[in-house]
């Protein structure tokens, strides 16, 4: 198997497994567990397959370019250290899968659990195998995310939700800091490639940005590894199912922070800043975590604080800036993973079989659960550092390091061994409490369940792990030696320090310290018996400084109080102030830029003024101001005036050589007017001087302010437009299009060629928008509820109906029978004519003004005219327009025309044209752009007609509803 395949499969397998597990039915408990087991075990086999290469101190690499210009690539890289972690992830992972298979209850949706677990495995593997800084940050956040999902697995309990949210908030915030730190690191090293970065250690350490980068990266690592003062999230993460606690929150996820610090150790370590930041955090966490752990009444709480403490130990070792300490740190990572995972599993078994995790209620379980008791005893002894177990050896190494550390401050040197011993004594005390409180003493009373041994397979993973503890503890050099060596070598390079893995190093100071700690811890536990049994939960003295409460108060302040007052001060929910500030900002920005940069006159002399266009614009300006004046009380007048403005704009387009625009503007003007006329019927009546005019008059000051803004905006736009027009426009694109329109696009109407050929993709996007808007309008109107005062029939119709009713000779609706008879006949005759014009505009569009947009609107006008003159019912009886089909056909045609280019091996929307000789008509250009334009045409017809008809139907629908109601009433009366 090649390197690439191996590495890719290692990362991809769990994600694939997660996807499959995610779609399994909820009842497929066994299938999901088997799938997860197979994935974990086969990945473990893959890791093992890499051992021969890794053990030669070779590095497996594979790289896929992503954004080369930014130095971003997807790179996987496996050296000894990454190999060890990958083995840890899959080794413990396999055991946890077996354990979880028996742990999860009947009613839990197990496939989802395994899907999350597998996805987490993938994220964790991706993290340890990453060969790129940004990639590390990505997988880092992914592990936070899946940790969140797993903690919140039992999301029906508030504790799970709160714990998950807290863990995500803390670790993801750390992850963001990490990303920032990684960016700085990449800047300093000149590359995001991990190999390059690892080789640039001295250069980075002497860089000015070293300290900020270090702080940011450590914020990420320390939050993830639950180091003081960010440790508080881990105990709350214990709301997760116990397999998750065993796997994520002791063996793997929380080790990610330690992993990162060790990974970047060759680059970042070796400075006083590193010693102070990492060392202090580790030391405080070590002592504090162990102290708090003693006073936890919850088994998992005790283990959580113990985990925090042991992570502190590893962090402290990393902070000591010594090669030997580094070896000890890696060693302890593995030891801690084995004994802590097995202890968590044991705690889970106890919880599972007795129904409680409260140490005060548990007692004497050794008689009912002897096997579990023995296993837990050994694991707890390893945790306490009892000789002949793995915890002892790494603790000895730690004591040795504490004694020989080179601290920048001599006082530290005296305190360090002492504090190490104190913490060790604490750990003996809580280990004793775990075992003695649970398994010894009198028989338990009043337990929720009758305790008994668990299923043999549920105990199996614990047995394996405990066996590992003993094997490593007795024969360290033979069992773990080679693996520890390759892992340490890949971090430290060729300068490996001498170290000896052995149980017996002679009667030396570390051994004495161990013995003192064992004795002191036992004494402490015995002395605290009464307090532990009857005292309150939580440690004395520092109980008040609960991290959780501080966190929650901070969250409330940040996300609620600050946000609220921020909104109150800076925000508004009213539209007018928002628009006002946007406009003001635009004015200030534009004016400010003009002032700051200075604006001179343009290089072109203005052309002479033509009196005709001046007159036209006099009318246009009058129309615009009139519309602004009248829009409140005289809507119809305002509408007509806006139409006038539209015509003036249209004339301007004609005048200044834009026939296509003029044509489109004229046509759109028609449909816009029809649209707004249809809307007028649903607006409230408003009469000048009626309904408390005094109340309507808002303060003069506000009107003046708005007037100032309007005048300012108008002047600004005038000035801007004038300055732009009196400068030579940049001609690069224009020349390009003018030169190639015919030679490459096969059309003489350059505007149309741009639309359907050169920038066809833009046009495709625009017709999609048009179609989407039409559908939205349609959808909004389907559930349309008019305002109550607009529901009744308009006044004119009421008068007509009353008139018809008053005359016995007339039937209802007779007044409108002869309504506009001559125009209606003319309009019906016009229909085919307008349709022909539309087709003509469409076909000639490539060479002459016209095209799909103009033709589409023309065709829709033909249809709308029939509606206007004949009414909706008559028109729909004669002519079935299916606007939705038009829209669909148009989109399909335009899209397929684009796709057709692929069939010829060309990029999307490449057009093709040729001239065909058709009898009678002659030489005709045949262009694929025409098919595209027909698509545009169909879509425009459909969209415009759909919007207008949907609105027009509202009037009819109201009456239909009335009719239906009347019919129902009549029917019920008849019964």
């Amino acid at each position, binding site marked *: 198997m090649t390197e690439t395949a191996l590495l890719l499969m290692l990362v991809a397998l769990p994600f694939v497994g997660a996807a499959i597990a995610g779609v399994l039915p909820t009842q497929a408990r066994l299938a999901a567990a088997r799938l997860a087991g197979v994935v974990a075990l086969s990945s473990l086999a893959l890791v093992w397959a890499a051992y021969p290469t890794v053990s030669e101190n070779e590095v497996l690499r594979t790289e896929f370019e992503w954004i080369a210009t930014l130095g971003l690539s997807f790179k996987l890289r496996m050296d000894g250290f990454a190999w060890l972690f990958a083995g840890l992830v899959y080794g413990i992972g396999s055991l946890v899968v077996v354990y979880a298979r028996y742990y999860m209850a009947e009613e839990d949706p197990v496939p989802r659990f395994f899907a999350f677990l597998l996805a987490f495995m993938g994220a964790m593997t991706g993290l340890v195998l990453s060969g790129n800084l940004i990639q590390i940050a990505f997988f880092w956040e992914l592990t936070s995310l899946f940790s969140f999902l797993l903690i919140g697995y039992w999301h029906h309990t508030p504790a799970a939700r709160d714990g998950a949210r807290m863990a995500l908030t803390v670790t993801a915030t750390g992850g963001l800091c990490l990303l920032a730190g990684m960016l700085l690191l990449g800047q300093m090293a000149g590359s995001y490639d991990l190999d390059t970065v690892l080789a640039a250690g001295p250069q980075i350490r002497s860089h000015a940005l070293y300290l900020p980068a270090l702080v940011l990266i450590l914020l990420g690592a320390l939050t993830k590894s639950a180091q003081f003062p960010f440790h508080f999230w881990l105990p709350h993460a214990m709301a997760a199912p116990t397999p998750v606690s065993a796997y994520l929150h002791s063996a793997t996820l929380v080790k990610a922070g330690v992993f990162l610090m060790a990974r970047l150790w060759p680059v970042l370590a070796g400075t006083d800043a590193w010693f102070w930041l990492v060392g202090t955090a580790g030391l405080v966490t070590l002592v504090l975590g162990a102290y708090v752990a003693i006073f936890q009444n919850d088994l998992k709480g005790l283990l959580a604080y113990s985990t925090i403490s042991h992570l502190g130990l590893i962090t402290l070792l990393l902070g000591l800036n010594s090669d030997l300490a580094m070896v000890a740190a890696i060693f302890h990572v593995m030891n801690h993973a084995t004994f802590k995972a097995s202890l968590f599993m044991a705690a889970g078994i106890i919880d599972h079989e007795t129904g409680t995790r409260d140490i005060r209620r548990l007692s004497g379980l050794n008689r009912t659960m002897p096997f579990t008791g023995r296993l837990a005893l050994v694991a707890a002894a390893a945790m306490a550092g009892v000789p002949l177990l793995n915890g002892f050896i790494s603790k000895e190494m730690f004591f040795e390091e504490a004694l020989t550390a080179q601290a920048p401050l001599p006082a530290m040197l005296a305190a360090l061994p002492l504090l190490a011993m104190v913490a060790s004594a604490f750990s003996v005390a809580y280990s004793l409490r775990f075992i003695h409180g649970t398994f010894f003493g009198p028989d338990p009373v009043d337990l929720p369940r009758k305790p008994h041994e668990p299923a043999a397979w549920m105990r199996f993973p614990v047995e394996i792990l405990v066996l590992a503890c003993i094997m490593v503890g007795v024969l360290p050099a033979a069992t773990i030696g080679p693996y520890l060596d390759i892992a340490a070598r890949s971090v430290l390079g060729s300068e490996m320090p001498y170290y000896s893995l052995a149980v017996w190093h002679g009667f030396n100071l570390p051994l004495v310290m161990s013995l003192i700690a064992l004795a002191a811890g036992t004494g402490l536990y015995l002395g605290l018996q009464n307090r532990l049994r009857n005292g309150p939960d939580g440690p004395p003295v520092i109980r008040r400084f609960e991290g959780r409460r501080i966190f929650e108060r901070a969250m409330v302040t940040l996300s609620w109080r600050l946000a609220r007052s921020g909104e109150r001060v800076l925000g508004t*929910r009213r539209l007018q102030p928002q628009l006002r500030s946007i*406009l003001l900002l635009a004015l200030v920005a534009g004016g400010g830029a003009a002032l700051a940069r200075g604006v001179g006159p343009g290089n072109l002399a203005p052309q002479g003024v033509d009196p005709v266009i001046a007159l036209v614009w006099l009318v246009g300006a009058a129309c615009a101001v009139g519309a602004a004046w009248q829009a409140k009380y005289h809507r119809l007048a305002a509408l007509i005036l806006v139409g006038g403005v539209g015509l003036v704009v249209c004339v301007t387009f004609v005048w200044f050589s834009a026939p296509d625009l003029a044509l489109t503007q004229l046509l759109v003007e028609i449909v816009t007017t029809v649209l707004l006329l249809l809307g007028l019927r649903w607006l409230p009546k408003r009469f000048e001087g009626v309904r408390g005019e005094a109340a309507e008059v808002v303060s003069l000051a506000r009107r003046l302010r708005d007037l100032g803004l309007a005048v300012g*905006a108008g002047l600004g736009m005038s000035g801007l437009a004038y300055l732009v027009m009196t400068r030579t426009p940049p001609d690069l694109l224009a020349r390009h299009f003018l030169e190639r329109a015919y030679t490459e696009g096969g059309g003489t109407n350059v505007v149309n060629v741009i639309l359907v050929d050169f920038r066809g993709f833009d046009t495709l996007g625009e017709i999609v928008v048009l179609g989407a808007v039409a559908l939205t309008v349609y959808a909004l109107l389907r559930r349309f509820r008019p305002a109550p005062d607009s529901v009744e029939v308009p006044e004119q119709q009421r008068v007509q109906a009353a008139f018809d009713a008053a005359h016995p000779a007339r039937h209802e609706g007779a007044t409108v029978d002869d309504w506009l008879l001559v125009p209606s006949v003319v309009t019906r005759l016009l229909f085919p004519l307008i349709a022909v014009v539309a087709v003509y505009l469409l076909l000639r569009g490539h060479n002459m003004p016209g095209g799909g947009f103009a033709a589409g609107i023309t065709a829709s006008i033909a249809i709308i005219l029939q509606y206007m003159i004949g009414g909706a019912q008559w028109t729909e009886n004669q002519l079935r327009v299916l606007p939705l089909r038009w829209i669909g056909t148009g989109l399909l045609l335009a899209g397929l025309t684009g796709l057709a280019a692929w069939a010829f091996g060309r990029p999307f929307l490449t057009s093709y044209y040729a001239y065909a000789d058709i009898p009678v008509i002659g030489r005709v250009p045949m262009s694929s752009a025409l098919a595209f334009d027909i698509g545009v045409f169909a879509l425009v017809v459909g969209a415009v007609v759909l919007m207008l008809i949907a609105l027009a139907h509202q009037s009819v629908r109201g009456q239909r509803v009335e009719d239906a109601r009347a019919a129902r009433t009549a029917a019920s009366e008849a019964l």
Partner: protein
Amino acid sequence: MELIVALGIGVLTGSGVWLLLRPRTFQVIIGLSLLSYAVNLFIFSTGGLKTGQPPILPPGGEGNLLEYADPLPQALVLTAIVISFATTALFLVVLLAARGLTGTDHVDGRERER
């Protein structure tokens, strides 16, 4: 010539902005229409004003900027005209639906408290 068009754009913008700041939805719709005329004209004018030189080439020919108007702003504005119709329609329907739901045609969905 340029001055006339520039002043025209200014008047349209001014009227549009004034209406945009008014409280009634219909006023805002009319304002947006006026504003879109102004913006379309402005984009169109960035290509320079030329009379009698539409960008329509003789068959088989290549064009240049001396003899033809700039086609690019025209292409931009052409689709903008059609889209502005669509947005006007959407806005009209939204305002009608909002009036149905809230019973008022004030832009905030409720009358100003006084």
